[in-house]
Structure formats: structure tokens, C-alpha cells
């Protein structure tokens, strides 16, 4: 069957309205079951022993004393897991290598970061498990470590992987290094472009790693049976991919592992990969008891993926009338302990908002002694865009051109050829700029020490493998089984709404659930803003299949050809003309007799969704700077974004607001702080400072809808674009307020105050 369903404009009854989400009541009453809420009779508690060193060779691990402790039922170390060859697989927006996956979940030859797992224990209580960890004797040979990306790129830097020779450079280097891979994306002749420029600006930017900061720590429960089957409950963004990864590292057949999704307390890219899951299964296999493992917040910070910290160099040139002639970027990203940062994605998003004849991005993926990075909402893009949008702001200012006008003169439009590959179809970038310029926020007055900044973002959005099933129940209600985890954005509501729209019934007649891995076909992770796009398309395809069956059934009952039966407003009605007349039947009428006229009615779809629509956004922010303390206050914030179509506008607004708030945190205070010993100093929410509610104003949103032609309702995906612009927008606003351009993130008070003092010193 054809899997791609194109956009059709039509009158909508359900799509575009704001019903309550199906998971809402459970969440506000506390009934919703998150990862840590699952338990089984006789379960053990699993805990992980973690490296206290940033970099060390493991000489020996002695678990005998821990095993002898009463209450300890199993201990696993590297010896319990097989060596894995180099083999790549997609995991969310990033690629994983099983050679490294198995080493990240349990150290083998070396530990590569503070917090790297070296052993795991299952015991009858948490306190016994903790005590047992203290009885495991690990002999380390401590090695020199490197934390900073530029330090790691130096020729004499401590080397993480002796066998790592830089990929992507010719000739192949004769020495191993921490530079795992270099990628170059290029179009035109950048040098020629710079020769045409009247103004050239070159700046260097630095950002710190930041954590996804989900409220729910990773939690799982595993039960392995004597006949080699296992059940796993885990809070992830994609239970099918968790199943694949666990089966691989545990050398199990996929059919023997069943993974149940739980409600997710946030993920933002950080719950795409396995951490404790294979350890819990291995401990259950060894102990013959179910094993539950819940991370502490400290473990979440020390061992699960933050995004990269980075060093970024941007050089751009433009003509006197504000036309960009050339753009060059060098992106140096920390990958953490193993290669595979988001630098490639960042490289493709660096300049993509602009129509450029000459552009080049050099992307370096660098291993350092930090936790292996994970995807984080539009992985990598905010880092590169911080640099580019700062430089654009500086160019516009230098030429005396309004920053939105400057961007409009260079904006990507339908037909623009990108420097990394595709040519754009219909996109809404220009519309977001125009609506931002027309918004009352953009012309509101500002007070002393206040400033306004603008920045823009682009994200690809993706499709990929997706399955969906609908079952028409005997009373005419519908159960919708979705295979993409609702990462708490409200996608279940959106799917139910599209199904209700197709069937012509009320949305509360459709109950969406997330199926487990044994109940439906494979679904890729909820990542890349693909949920409502790809799963929505699968839901529509499944519903249309069910509607075809409904029409056939009515044709059979009413003894008319199927062409005579039209599905309209929840009823089978005569198509009109010569085709034949019959009394209409409602969905409930057909459902009631379905059993005796051929069996229950269902529809299913298994697709690989293609044609995701790129998303663009423009942000406006007002700040006030306290020049005596360096404190930046966010006064007003507006997000304008093209989402294709907002199926449920309230949840789309929630995505735009949430992305902006996470971006504000990244810009203002969030950062990993390491000591000279390579140990993380702030693994908790007290000292890793995400914004609290009172730190941010109400985030105003403007939804722009330029339909994606490759989705039945025009959906593009909206969750990632809004985190891209905030860092640059806020930096531009600070420059506008106090005349100082900040090129280091976060713009925490000590950094801002120092910049103010340095500027005053330079003037004096």
C-alpha cells in the first residue's frame, strides 16, 4: 500500500481545537505510572558502582566480598557482557556504535569519565545494595584526563582511545588522536564570496555542556525467565529501539524481549539510549528475580548524556546593502567519552536559514573525559546558531539595517538550495520574520539597561519507521494503538484528534494507548519532532484502511457496490448519482453488527514516513541587565514559528514555550562544572541551575501555518525548533542593552559582570 498521504485542504471539525489530553487527568491526580512506579513481587533493587576517576585503566575488579554479603543476589561486571564489534545503528537523531554502547553501559578496559559504570549489584534492599557497592574492590591505574574540547584537540593531549585515527581527513593520520571525525559541508567558493564582501566579521564562541534536565530520572524494571525470555518496563522515548539495543548487547533474540513503555517524565533526547536496562536484565538473569533500577539525580547528571560543550568559529561577509556573500564556520564539539556528537546535525543547521551561494562548515567530533553526549532537542543546532545569529546581529548593526530586515534580505525560501543537500519545498521562514516584525512586542518601548534581541532557528524534522493500529469496538468507540512514545508533549491527543477527524466522530470516542513492542510493528524513537508527523500519518493511514473496511461491510449489508458507499461525518452514506440508494449507517450501527457480518473491524499501517517538513522560527526577547551584579532578567519573550499545522494548538504552544524556556536556561545559568580532578562538581538541581517558574515571563507564541505538502493535515513537527534561537536572541538583547557582545555561554552573572568590568577597564 502507498504509505505517503499528501496534504489536502478541507473543512476541519476536530483538528485545530483544544480538547483535554487523554493522559491529563491521570497526571494531575498522580495516577499516571512513570518508570519508577512499576514493581513486581519478589523484586530486587539494583545499584551501580561508578568510577570516581575521569580516566583510568581498570586493573582488576574483585566482587567476592559483595557477593558474600547477605541479601546480595547478583553482581555483574564487564565479564558478564560480550565484546561487541564495531556496528552502527540509528538512535534518535544520533548514531550509536555497539562497540561503544557496551563499553558505556559497563566499562571494559578503561573508565572514561567520572560516573562511568564498573559494576552493578542486585540485593533484597536498597541499603544492602549500597553497602555491597562499597565492598567491591576496583584497582585503577589513574591516567591523565582532558575535559575541554580545544585542549583535547592538542597534539600532546591525554588520549582516550589508542585506536582512534581521525576519520574524514586525507591522508589518514599516522597517529591516533581525540579528533574522532572531521566532516565538511560546502557549497560554492567561500574565498571568492569573501572577496565580494564589504563587511567581514569573524568571532569565536564557547558553550558549556548542558543536561536535558528531565524531571524523571531513568528508571526500569526487568524480569528474566528461566526459558530465556524477558519483560522490561522502562521510561524511554522509544521502547522498540531500547529493545533492539538491549537484545544486541545481551545477545538475545528480539522476539524474546518485550518492552513495555511507561509514562515519560521528560526526555528531550536524553532517553533514546540504554543505560541501566541491560544491567537490570543481566542482574535478573543471574539472580532469577525481577530487578528494579532507579537512578538518583546525581547518577543522571554524572552518567547520562548532556549535550556537547563546544568551541565555534564563525566568519561571515556581506555587501553594504546587507546581502551575505560568504559564510564559514568551524564547529568543535565535545562528544564525551565515545565519538558521535551532534556536530553533523549542527553543521547542517548552521547557515540553513539563509540563501547562500558560498558557504562552508567544518565539523569536528572530539572525544573528552565526560559522559557520552546524548541528543538534546534539536541536537547541536542551538550551539552553532548562537554564533551565526550573533554575527548576523553584529553585521546588521554595523550597517544600520534592522535585524529582521537584514534576515529577510537573505532568507531561505521555497526553491532555495541548501549547502548540505536538499532544495527547500514550501517553508515558512519569511512568514515568521514578517509576523515577528509586525508583532507589538517588536516595537514596544524599552527602559534603561533594557535591550531587545532577535534570532532565528531551523530544524529538519524527520519521519522514519512507524506503525499504528485502530480497533473499532463493538459499541462504535475506537481504540487507537500508537507505537511512538508520547514524550509528554501531548501527541496522544493529536493522534486521537486526527483519527476522530477522519472517522467523523467526537474525539472522546477515540482512546489512544501506547502499545508495547510485542503488540505492533516496529516504531522508531520519538525524536526529530517526528511523533505527530510520522505517527500521525500512520494513524491516518490505519484509519483510512478501517474506513475502507467499513464501506465494504456496509456495501455487503445494504447490497450495493462499494463505490456507492461514502464515509461522511461518521456515517456510511450513499455516494449519490446512479450508484444506489440505502439507509445510512453510523459507525456504531456497523460496529454493532460487525461480529456477525464478517468479524471485527480494524485498520493498521506500517510505514516509513518520508517528506518531513522543515521548521523555522523567529524569537524576540527583551532583557534587563543589572550592571552591578551582572544579573540578566528576561522581561518579555515571543516565539513565532511555522509548525505546518497545529493539530492541538495548546500543546503546540506548550512546545514553543518549553523549548524557549530550556533555551533560556542554557543561555543564563546551566553548565557542567568540573574540578581539576575531572570530577563533576554540580550533579544536582541546586547547583545545576535550570530556570524556575519565576525566572521566566509568560512566553508569548504566534503559530504560523504553512502546510507540509507531505502530510494529510500539513504537520511539520514543532518540538525542536524553539530551543535553537534563545541563546543568540538573549545575547543580542544583552548587546542591545549594554553594548557588550557576550560570546561565552552561559551568560551567568559572574561572566556578565566580568565582561562589564573588562569593558569599563578598556575604556578607562
Amino acid at each position: 500500500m502507498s504509505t505517503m498521504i499528501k496534504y489536502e485542504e478541507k473543512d476541519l471539525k476536530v483538528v485545530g481545537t483544544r480538547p483535554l489530553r487523554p493522559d491529563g487527568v491521570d497526571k494531575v491526580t498522580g495516577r499516571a505510572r512513570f518508570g519508577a512506579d512499576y514493581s513486581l513481587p519478589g523484586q530486587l533493587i539494583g545499584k551501580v558502582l561508578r568510577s570516581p576517576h575521569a580516566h583510568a585503566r581498570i586493573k582488576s575488579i574483585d566482587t567476592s566480598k559483595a557477593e558474600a554479603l547477605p541479601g546480595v543476589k547478583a553482581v555483574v561486571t564487564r565479564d558478564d557482557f560480550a565484546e561487541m564489534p564495531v556496528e552502527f545503528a540509528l538512535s534518535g537523531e544520533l548514531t550509536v556504535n555497539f562497540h561503544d554502547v557496551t563499553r558505556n553501559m559497563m566499562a571494559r578496559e578503561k573508565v572514561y569519565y567520572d560516573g562511568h559504570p564498573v559494576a552493578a549489584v542486585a540485593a533484597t534492599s536498597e541499603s544492602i545494595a549500597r553497602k555491597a557497592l562499597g565492598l567491591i574492590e576496583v584497582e585503577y591505574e589513574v591516567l591523565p584526563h582532558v575535559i575541554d574540547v580545544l585542549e583535547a584537540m592538542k597534539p600532546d593531549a591525554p588520549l582516550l582511545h589508542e585506536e582512534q585515527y581521525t576519520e574524514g581527513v586525507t591522508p589518514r593520520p599516522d597517529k591516533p588522536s581525540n579528533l574522532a571525525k572531521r566532516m565538511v559541508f560546502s557549497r560554492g567558493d567561500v574565498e571568492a564570496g569573501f572577496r565580494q564582501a564589504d563587511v567581514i566579521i569573524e568571532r569565536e564562541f564557547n558553550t558549556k555542556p548542558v543536561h536535558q534536565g528531565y524531571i524523571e530520572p531513568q528508571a526500569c524494571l526487568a524480569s528474566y525467565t528461566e526459558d530465556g525470555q524477558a519483560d522490561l518496563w522502562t521510561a524511554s522515548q522509544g521502547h522498540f529501539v531500547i529493545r533492539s539495543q538491549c537484545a544486541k548487547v545481551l545477545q538475545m533474540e528480539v522476539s524474546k524481549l518485550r518492552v513495555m513503555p511507561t509514562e515519560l517524565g521528560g526526555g528531550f533526547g536524553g532517553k533514546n539510549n540504554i543505560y541501566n536496562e541491560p544491567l537490570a536484565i543481566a542482574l535478573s538473569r543471574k539472580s532469577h528475580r525481577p530487578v528494579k533500577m532507579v537512578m538518583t539525580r546525581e547518577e543522571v547528571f554524572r552518567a547520562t548524556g548532556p549535550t556537547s560543550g563546544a568551541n565555534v568559529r564563525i566568519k561571515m561577509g556581506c555587501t553594504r546593502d546587507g546581502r551575505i556573500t560568504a559564510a564559514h564556520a568551524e564547529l568543535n564539539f565535545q562528544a564525551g567519552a565515545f565519538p558521535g556528537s551532534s556536530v553533523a546535525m549542527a553543521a547542517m543547521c548552521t547557515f540553513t536559514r539563509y540563501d547562500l551561494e558560498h558557504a562552508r562548515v567544518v565539523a569536528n567530533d572530539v572525544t573528552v573525559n565526560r559522559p557520552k553526549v546524548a541528543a538534546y532537542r534539536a541536537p547541536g543546532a542551538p550551539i552553532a546558531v548562537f554564533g551565526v545569529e550573533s554575527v548576523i546581529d553584529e553585521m546588521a548593526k554595523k550597517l544600520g539595517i534592522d535585524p529582521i530586515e537584514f534576515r529577510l534580505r537573505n532568507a531561505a525560501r521555497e526553491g532555495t538550495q541548501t549547502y548540505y543537500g536538499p532544495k527547500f519545498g514550501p517553508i515558512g521562514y519569511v512568514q515568521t520574520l514578517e509576523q515577528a516584525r509586525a508583532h507589538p512586542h517588536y516595537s514596544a518601548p524599552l527602559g534603561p539597561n533594557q535591550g531587545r534581541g532577535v534570532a532565528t532557528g531551523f530544524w529538519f524534522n524527520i519521519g522514519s519507521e512507524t506503525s499504528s493500529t485502530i480497533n473499532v469496538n463493538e459499541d462504535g468507540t475506537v481504540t487507537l494503538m500508537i507505537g511512538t512514545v508520547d514524550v509528554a508533549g501531548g501527541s496522544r491527543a493529536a493522534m486521537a484528534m486526527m483519527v476522530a477527524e477522519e472517522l467523523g466522530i467526537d474525539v472522546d470516542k477515540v482512546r489512544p494507548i501506547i502499545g508495547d513492542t510485542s503488540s505492533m510493528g516496529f516504531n522508531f524513537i520519538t525524536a526529530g519532532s517526528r511523533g505527530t508527523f510520522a505517527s500521525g500519518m500512520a494513524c491516518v493511514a490505519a484509519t483510512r484502511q478501517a474506513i475502507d473496511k467499513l464501506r465494504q461491510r456496509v456495501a455487503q449489508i445494504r447490497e450495493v457496490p462499494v463505490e456507492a458507499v461514502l464515509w461522511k461525518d461518521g456515517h456510511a452514506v450513499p455516494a449519490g448519482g446512479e450508484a444506489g440508494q440505502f439507509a445510512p449507517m453510523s459507525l456504531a450501527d456497523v460496529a454493532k453488527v460487525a461480529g456477525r457480518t464478517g468479524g471485527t473491524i480494524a485498520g493498521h499501517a506500517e510505514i516509513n514516513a518520508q517528506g518531513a517538513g522543515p521548521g523555522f522560527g523567529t524569537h524576540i526577547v527583551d532583557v534587563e541587565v543589572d550592571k552591578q551584579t551582572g544579573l540578566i532578567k528576561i522581561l518579555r519573550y515571543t516565539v513565532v514559528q511555522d509548525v505546518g499545522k497545529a493539530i492541538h494548538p495548546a500543546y503546540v504552544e506548550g512546545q514553543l514555550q518549553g523549548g524557549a524556556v530550556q533555551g533560556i536556561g542554557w543561555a543564563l545559568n546551566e553548565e557542567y562544572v568540573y574540578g581539576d580532578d575531572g570530577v563533576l562538581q554540580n550533579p544536582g538541581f541546586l547547583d545545576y541551575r535550570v530556570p524556575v517558574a519565576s525566572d521566566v515571563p509568560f512566553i508569548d507564541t504566534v503559530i504560523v501555518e504553512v502546510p507540509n505538502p507531505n502530510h494529510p493535515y500539513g504537520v511539520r513537527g514543532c518540538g525542536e525548533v524553539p530551543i535553537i534561537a534563545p541563546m543568540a536572541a538573549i545575547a543580542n538583547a544583552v548587546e542591545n542593552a549594554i553594548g557588550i557582545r557576550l560570546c561565552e555561554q552561559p551568560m551567568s552573572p559572574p561572566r556578565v559582570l566580568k565582561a562589564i568590568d573588562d569593558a569599563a577597564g578598556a575604556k578607562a
Partner: protein
Amino acid sequence: MSDMLYEAPGTLRAALALLSGANGKARVMAGGTDLLIQMRSGRIEPELLVDIKHIPDLRAIALKRGGFQFGSAVTCMELIEHEAFARAWPGVIDGVKLIGSIQVKGRATVGGNVCNASPAADSVPALIAAGALARIVGPDGKRDVPVEDIPTGPGKTSLASGEIVVSFILPKRLPRSGDAYLRFIPRTEMDIAVVGAGVNLTLDRRGFCTLARVSLGAVAERALLVSEAAAALVGTKVDDAALRQLAAAASAACRPIDDKRGTKEFRFKVAGVLARRAAEIALQRAGRKN
């Protein structure tokens, strides 16, 4: 965590007896908002918890001989909602209001905030500026000690084994007095002070400052009483020149460290800025008719 005993005595005598029998393996618990976190993280493993919230005297707020006295187990919210106390010591209330969320303040106590001995504790500089005494009862009897002498360093106090802080005693409030406490945090709430400054002052009828106390938090191993900063105000009309001197003296008194919460350089500067801003608020409060 191994086996632990929890006791909630109804009298001070019983609490002291429990502590003296525990060989130093006991901890006193008031609100528990710091203690439970330390236990959960494995930092401390007490064998006995003595909960003092059930001792009526330790829960009282009263005016005695013209000055306020409040028990060490009075919760932050009880203190905040005590209108007469809040009118007399708005600066102490500034500090108490900043301890955690409303929910945390419903449990947390000033006694616990002082005895937890964090250099960044928000009620401590305000109490020091107010000139508060802590009444301590132990195996050897009773003693009254200025609050600045209780914390000696991060997590350390001058309390002897078996001693309990039972109450805080504030001096009689003089006319034309005002106090204020400000802290710097990079967020708006739910954070820990990077710098804290408490200022308490009294004016004469002509508006000259006759008494002043200044205290700084989070800029040394414990909250500091900065007499040089106070001296900058006494005898002045708390004008711009005096405030500049106050700020300079406050900065000079800091002995901060670089840590995850802020740099040394930042703390030196902001200590002066906050001391000045707190003095301006205290001055305005002193000028109010009370």
C-alpha cells in the same frame, strides 16, 4: 542506612537525656529539611534522631522584657506569619522568607538553619545583624551566645556534645530602627546564596545613625559580623559617601573561594553592592513610623 532510632520527646529534659545517652551518634532534628537530605545522600548515618518539634517551649514566639524571643523549632512560616515580629524585624523575615519553597518553610526552622552551619544560610546574617543571641541548653546548664559564634565553618558549630539551641533572643527594638537582608542568586528563588548581606541600623531624631550592625553570608567559611562596615555608617546620615565606605568595607571583609556557585572576584564585588542595597532598605524602614 542501617538501623536508626527516632524519638520525639515532649520535654527538653527528655531530649537532653536521649542525647547524653547516645555517645555522639545522635542528631537533633527540627524541621529536618537539611538533615533528611544529608541522610538520604549517605553523608551522615545517625543512630538516633531526636525530634524537638514536640517540645512546647521550643515552638513559642513571645515578647519578653520588651524583646522578642522565639523557640528553635518554630517553623519559618510561623515566624513569617507572626505580624508583630515581622513588623519589628523585617530584615530577619527577609532572610527567613528566602529559605526554600513555601512547603519547605512549613517544616524548616531558624534553629535548624543556624545549626546546619551552611556559610550561605539566609537567616544567619540577618540574625547576626539583628544582634540575636542563641540560648543553648546542655548537660552543663544554660548559656546565651551571640549567633555569630555558633557556626564555625561549613557544617561545624561551637555546640558541645549533647547541647541543643532552644531559642533565639532579640534585643528590645529601639525607635527609628530598621533592618534588611538581601542575597544574590542567579535565579529568582529556590537557590542558595552566592552572597548575602544583612544590615540593621538605628537613627537618632536628626537622622544620624547611632547604631549599626552589618553581616555577610557566603563570602567566608561562616557568616561574618563586619564591624568596619557598620562603623562606616555610625555618625553619618547614611548618605552616598557613607554607603560607598560601607560597600568598600564589606568587600574588604570577604575571604571567599572560587566554587561552582560563583567566583571570588564576583563575591568581593557583589558583597559591597548588596551591603549597600540592604543598608538603603534598612534606612528606609528606619524612617518609617513604627
